[in-house]
Structures are given as structure tokens and as C-alpha cells.
């Protein structure tokens, strides 16, 4: 080693000085790169070691809290002291960020798999440990996906006092966040939560409407709210959604509002209202449907003739006869089939001619 510093290194350095400048520069670059690679390797190894250590710590902590939590769940009334002590321990633990994440994660995962009294117990524990506060913190984060995580947590744990916070997110610029907030409104507040439709500025996508309807169908209390206001909304998708609710809950008393929507400027609203009118077999809609038939686009004409077919009576025969020669195949098929039902004998005679 002494030889290296006293003779080899000075000789190498003097040999280096005799080299042309370009070669010297190249050597310096090579040496620097070697040093950088070695430093990076050391850094990566250290990071990996730290990561592994952290993982092990997390695993150990998870196992520790798993046992504490499960023991706590199954403590009986006779073990009140142990119950109080465990709760104290958990309350103390959640003050530490990583411990809190583990405890919260365990409660949420278990709650996801369990129903009945254990699920209720976990919800109560979530409140008792004041974990709601941290979910609300997430909901108020500036990052949209953290907000979503917060919303999901409060929804899963049925936290009811987040109405204002959730309502604020209904018109957020991020679509995923908006959708999550809308679903939460229905999941937590049921029909009351549908009030978000009053202030919704963005369109509700078809998929979102399907998801909302699925949630609404699971509501046990079937006292349907008044849908009239939403049928007059400035947001076309809200009108279409309200029309679907009208159909779902058989709100046939709103037929006058539905008939008015047949003349709505939005084609989508017109089509949705036409199909709902047909579904309810509202005969009063026939006149207006026939009036707008000619002026409508072929796609809307198809909706109209389908509805009229559902409403057909003998006196409508001339209308359907006119449509037998319609250039659109689907339309003339519906006309033909309707006529077949209305006057089977006459049609056979006419065809034979």
C-alpha cells in the first residue's frame, strides 16, 4: 500500500503529465465516470437496504397491530380494563404517521371483507380513534387522487358529516373526482344526496348515470323526491338522468313535463323523453310526436316511431301506412309490424293485391 502511494501513484501521475492534452482530458473523464458509477452503486445499495429495512419494519408493525386489533375486536365485556388499555394504545399509536397508516389500512381492509356487527364495530372504532379527521384531511388535499382516497374512506366508513365537503367537489375540474363525489352523495345521503343535481354544471356521463342508478336502486327508503325541478334543469344530462329516474320510479304524474321535453332543443333530451313516453304508453303524447316526426332526424324518427308503435290504436293506421315506404329500413319495419298488429287481415289483402 505504501509502495502504491510513494512510487506507483507519482509515476502514474508523471506519465499522465507527459500525455497529450486530449488524452489527458479523456482519462479525466473516464476516471470521473468510474467514480460516479461507484458512488451511484453505493447509493443504490444503501437505498435498497433502507427500503428493505423499512419494509421489514412495516411488516413487523402490521403484524403487531393486526394482533392488537383482532384481540381488541374479540374482547368481552368482562375484559373492560384490557379494552380501555388497548384503545389508549391505539389512540397513542395513531399520532405517529406510519403507525396510523397501518392501523387505518387494517381497519379499512377488514371492514371491506366483513358485514354485520363486526363491520359496525369497525366503523365505531374508526370514529373513536378519530381517523375521520385524517380522511377529511385527504379530502381537502390539493391533489385530486388523494381527495378521491379520502372520499372513498369516508364513504366506506359511512361518515355522515361530510355533506358540504363532498358537495364542493361536485363541480371539480377532474372528472374522476366529480364522479366519486356524486356516488358518495348518493351512497351516504341517498335521495337527499341527489340535491347535487341542482348545482351540477358538468354533464353526467352515461356510465356515471348507470352507476348512480345502481346505487339509487339499493336505497331501501323508496320515498322518491320530487323530480320536476331536474326535468327543467339547464344541464341536459341532468334532464336525461331525471327522465331515467321517472321511468325507474314510475313517476307517471310528470307526463306533462315529459311531453314538453319532446320539443327540447337538445336531441338527446328529446330522444330520452320520447322513449320514456312510449314506455309509459302516454296517449296524450301522440299528437305532438306525429307533429315533430317529419322535421326530426332519421335517428330521432326511429325513437318516435318506436314510441308511437307502443301507443298505437286503430286510428293511427294512416300514419303507419305512410311510413311503410320510409327509406329507413328500421322505421318501415316498425311501421309494417305495427300495422300487422293493428289490422292483420287488411294488410294481407293489400299485400296480395
Amino acid at each position, binding site marked *: 500500500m505504501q509502495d502504491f502511494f510513494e512510487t506507483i501513484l507519482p509515476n502514474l501521475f508523471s506519465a499522465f503529465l507527459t500525455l497529450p492534452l486530449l488524452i489527458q482530458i479523456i482519462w479525466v473523464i473516464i476516471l470521473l465516470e468510474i467514480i460516479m458509477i461507484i458512488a451511484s452503486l453505493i447509493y443504490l445499495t444503501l437505498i435498497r437496504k433502507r427500503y428493505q429495512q423499512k419494509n421489514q419494519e412495516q411488516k413487523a408493525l*402490521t403484524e403487531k397491530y*393486526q*394482533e392488537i*386489533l*383482532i*384481540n381488541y*375486536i*374479540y374482547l368481552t365485556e368482562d375484559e373492560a380494563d384490557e379494552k380501555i388499555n388497548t384503545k389508549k394504545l391505539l389512540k397513542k399509536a395513531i399520532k405517529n404517521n406510519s403507525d396510523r397508516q397501518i392501523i387505518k389500512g*387494517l381497519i379499512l*381492509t*377488514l*371492514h*371491506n*371483507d*366483513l*358485514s*354485520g*356487527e*363486526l*363491520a359496525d364495530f369497525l366503523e365505531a372504532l374508526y370514529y373513536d380513534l378519530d381517523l375521520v379527521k385524517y380522511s377529511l384531511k385527504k379530502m381537502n388535499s390539493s391533489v385530486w387522487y388523494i381527495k378521491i382516497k379520502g372520499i372513498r374512506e369516508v364513504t366506506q366508513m359511512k361518515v355522515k358529516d361530510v355533506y358540504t365537503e363532498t358537495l364542493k367537489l361536485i363541480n371539480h375540474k377532474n372528472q374522476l373526482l366529480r364522479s366519486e363525489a356524486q356516488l358518495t352523495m348518493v351512497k351516504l345521503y341517498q335521495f337527499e344526496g341527489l340535491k347535487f343535481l341542482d348545482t351540477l354544471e358538468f354533464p353526467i356521463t352515461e356510465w356515471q348515470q348507470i352507476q348512480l342508478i345502481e346505487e339509487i336502486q339499493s336505497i331501501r327508503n323508496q320515498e322518491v323526491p320530487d323530480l320536476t325541478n331536474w326535468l327543467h334543469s339547464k344541464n341536459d344530462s341532468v334532464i336525461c338522468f331525471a327522465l331515467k329516474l321517472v321511468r325507474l320510479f314510475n313517476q307517471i304524474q310528470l307526463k306533462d313535463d315529459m311531453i314538453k321535453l319532446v320539443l327540447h332543443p337538445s336531441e338527446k333530451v328529446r330522444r330520452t323523453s320520447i322513449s320514456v313516453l312510449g314506455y309509459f304508453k302516454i296517449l296524450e303524447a301522440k299528437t305532438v310526436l306525429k307533429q315533430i316526426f317529419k322535421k326530426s332526424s332519421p335517428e330521432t324518427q326511429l325513437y318516435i316511431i318506436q314510441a308511437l308503435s307502443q301507443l298505437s290504436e286503430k286510428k293511427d293506421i294512416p300514419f303507419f301506412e305512410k311510413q311503410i315506404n320510409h327509406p329507413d329500413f328500421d322505421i318501415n319495419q316498425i311501421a309494417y309490424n305495427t300495422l300487422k298488429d293493428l289490422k292483420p287481415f287488411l294488410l294481407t289483402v293489400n299485400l296480395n293485391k
Partner: protein
Amino acid sequence: MKEKVLLAEDDKTLSLLLKFRLEKEGYQTITAADGNEAKKLIEEHQPDIILTDIMMPFSSGLEVISFVKDTLQRDTPIVVFSAAGQEEMVLKAFNLGATDFMSKPFSPNELIIRIKRILMQKK
């Protein structure tokens, strides 16, 4: 002698919770974290009843049922845990010979009642 229950569930927390509950009810509980471990433990311990999740690493719950019914040719009752949207899998499980199923989220109390009923019928 205590009746043996084999619990195959990859969610460690749920597995621990169920084990705790089953042991409180007086069952000897053997847990497996995946399908392969479950198959090994079934052969080794010959449990009286098997509780298995459908979706598990390495071997699924369906493979576990097939192993018990076809390979080992045993009539050990098997209760399957499924999640929402796994209805097709549940049908396959029944076709393979599963005795009962419980859809997640489920109540451990209900599970205990079902286990007791199945084991009574077996006797």
C-alpha cells in the same frame, strides 16, 4: 377431539380474525396463505372442513376444490369465499364440488353457523 378447519385465505388480517374466531368456537384451525400451501396442508392434516377464498396466489380456490375432490377423492365439505362479481367462479366451484359459498363482505357469525350446520350434517 377438536374438529379441524383448514382456512385458505391470502388476506392475512381476515385470516387471523377468522382463525381467532374459529379457535374461540373450539375448532383446531390451520391456515394457508395461498392455494399451494392449502393443498399441502390438506394432504398433511386431513381437515374436517375447508374454508377457501376463490382468488388466491399460485393456486386458486377452484384448484383447491379440484385437488380435494378429484385428486384426493375426499368428500370433505368445502365453503368458498367469493367477492362481488365472481358469480361465474362460484358456479364453477359448485360444479367442482363445493358445499357452500359466502360472498364478501360476510359476517363471521354467519360463517360459524354454516360451519356448525355442515359438520352436523356430515355426522
